[in-house]
């Protein structure tokens, strides 16, 4: 009745970074129960240990380019790179959290378990080649984030943040599920490679199935669009980012985006690249829609960020804008032949954004007071005199977010704009460049505040030992990718996505 697969058939070795981390979560959960309340730093150490093991393992199996667990899990350099982003984000977030949680009085061992769950969710999302796995991974990624956002439970803003995120996130999941059901209805399968195989026939016969497929893809896009916060599904972002404890905001801004875009890219690159209006067209039917959404996201995110006075809110709108840039890469995937270049550009952009944004949030946390205040832009006045090193690093992060050469952000934008031009999206590229110029206004304003404005200068008492480690790591990552981009690009040089390229 059933063929019992051997361990070799399941091919577990290549899945180990994600599977190990998922099981390690259980270890952290149980061990934490026996760690006394005032020694929660041991939980953090244990978590870091697990993350590092997963990281090393990921390096070992990085380029294995195999499928595992009956084709449900793809271990190629795409998923390896997503794992890289997720683990980096989790490690840095771990460093960010240790002292912050303690001084704001929300230290709980579960925080680290939830962080690990969420990280494992991102990793499964990047490696999933089946809509069911994508959905479950999406939930594993999201549910811990809802809880973590509401963790500062004495603060009404934090509760509002968790509630808002939960309700809209559940809504988005429902959209995703509906879309997946329609895609299943049109193609009869949930496996991404099999969907790819049936797309051509559906486009050729112009049956009712095509309508379902397009509708399904659109709904999936809406669901994932909520998660990565693209316009018009971005409304939750500022409130959630502002209310959540800052390390959670930092993690959420990079990990949830990485997961969402990983799933989106996988879906578009593996399953639906040939969903064209007519057979033989070189542009996928969904490209224009995504390009318009990307343009709207870049414009709105950047312009609304200008008027913000709270740094966390500003970075929220900035993260919306950056989702627009990455979405530009997704749109470029729709032109046949550019998919590989565009995917690579989007991935490297995400890595650059991960380092830069975590660094920026680290500096914000250094200034933040125990009660959550001190995150106004005005609080940065005179920081160059009180904490020169911190100010230099913050300035660098801001320049990287703008996309100035020698920073990681520049490399990301350079590759992305190149891919978009290659794909023939000239207008979109122009919008991208222009909005980058606009973004300089509000990023540079922080630099101006730090260096040119008078002020005492915040003592930045939050810059404790562990937080400094995180800031240095983020700074090093941003600098290294900026100066030696080939290090990151080479990782994806022989990019194999399910053998398509």
């Amino acid at each position, binding site marked *: 009745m059933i063929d*019992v697969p051997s361990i070799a058939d399941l091919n577990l070795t290549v899945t180990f970074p994600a599977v190990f981390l998922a099981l390690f979560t259980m270890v952290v959960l149980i061990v934490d129960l026996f760690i006394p309340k005032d020694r929660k730093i041991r939980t953090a150490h244990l978590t870091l240990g697990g993350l590092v093991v997963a990281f090393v393992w990921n390096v070992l199996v990085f380029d294995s380019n195999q499928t595992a667990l009956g084709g449900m899990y793809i271990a190629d350099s795409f998923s390896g790179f997503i794992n890289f982003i997720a683990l980096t984000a989790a490690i840095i977030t771990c460093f960010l959290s240790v002292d912050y949680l303690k001084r704001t009085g929300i230290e709980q061992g579960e925080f680290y378990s939830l962080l690990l769950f969420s990280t494992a969710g991102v990793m499964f999302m990047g490696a999933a080649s089946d809509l069911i796995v994508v959905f479950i991974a999406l939930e594993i990624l999201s549910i811990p984030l809802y809880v973590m956002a509401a963790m500062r439970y004495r603060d009404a803003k934090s509760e509002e943040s968790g509630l808002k995120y939960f309700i809209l996130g559940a809504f988005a999941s429902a959209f995703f599920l509906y879309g997946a059901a329609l895609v299943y209805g049109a193609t009869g399968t949930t496996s991404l490679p099999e969907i790819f195989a049936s797309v051509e026939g559906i486009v050729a016969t112009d049956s009712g199935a095509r309508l379902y497929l397009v509708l399904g893809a659109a709904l999936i896009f809406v669901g994932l669009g909520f998660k990565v916060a693209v316009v018009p599904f971005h409304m939750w972002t500022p409130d959630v980012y502002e209310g959540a404890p800052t390390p959670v905001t930092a993690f959420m801004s990079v990990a949830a985006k990485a997961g969402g875009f990983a799933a989106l890219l996988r879906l578009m690159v593996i399953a639906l690249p040939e969903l064209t209006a007519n057979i033989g067209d070189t542009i996928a039917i969904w490209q224009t829609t995504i390009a318009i959404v990307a343009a709207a996201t870049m414009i709105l995110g950047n312009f609304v960020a200008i008027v913000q006075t709270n740094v966390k809110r500003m970075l929220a709108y900035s993260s919306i804008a950056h989702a627009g840039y990455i979405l530009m890469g997704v749109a470029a995937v729709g032109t046949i032949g550019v998919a590989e270049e565009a995917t690579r550009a989007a991935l490297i952009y995400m890595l650059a954004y991960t380092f830069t944004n975590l660094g920026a949030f680290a500096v914000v946390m250094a200034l933040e007071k125990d009660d959550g205040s001190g995150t106004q832009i005005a609080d940065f006045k005179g920081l160059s005199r009180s904490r020169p090193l911190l100010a230099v690093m913050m300035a660098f992060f801001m320049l990287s977010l703008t996309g100035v050469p020698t920073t990681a952000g520049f490399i990301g934008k350079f590759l992305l704009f190149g891919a978009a031009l290659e794909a023939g999206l000239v207008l979109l590229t122009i919008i991208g460049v222009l909005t980058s110029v606009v973004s300089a206004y509000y990023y540079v304003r922080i630099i101006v505040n730090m260096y040119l404005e008078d002020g005492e200068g915040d003592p930045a008492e939050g810059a404790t030992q562990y937080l400094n480690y995180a800031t240095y790591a983020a700074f090093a990552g941003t600098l290294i990718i900026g100066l030696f981009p080939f290090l990151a690009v080479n990782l994806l040089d022989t990019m194999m996505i399910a053998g398509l390229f």
Partner: protein
Amino acid sequence: MALQQFAPIAALIILAVVLTFIISNISTIFGPSNNTSRKTAPYESGMQPIGVGMRRMPVKFYLIGVLFILFDIEVIFFLPWAVVFRDLGFYGLAVMGLFFFILTIGLIYEWKKGALEWE
């Protein structure tokens, strides 16, 4: 799918509904009715009922409800596995074992955290 298969279930449901209706109304129909305000008041073991009938419940009930859903879903996963577990052999047991193990860790956590205690 032969619908006849479900005839016993349908009969059971109809019987349950009809019987409930009869039992809950039979005394009203046949019994003598002599209502006073004391008699129509809710029975509170002889105490005078105070306040409104619908009081706000403690949030603990909600936690119990959520945990119940989660274990209910676990049971749902057991169901299709249980009908074929003889054919699946040791492999099936191992797969379900891992599933069960992970949820048991959740249960241990819950227990140790005191979420099952009422106090």
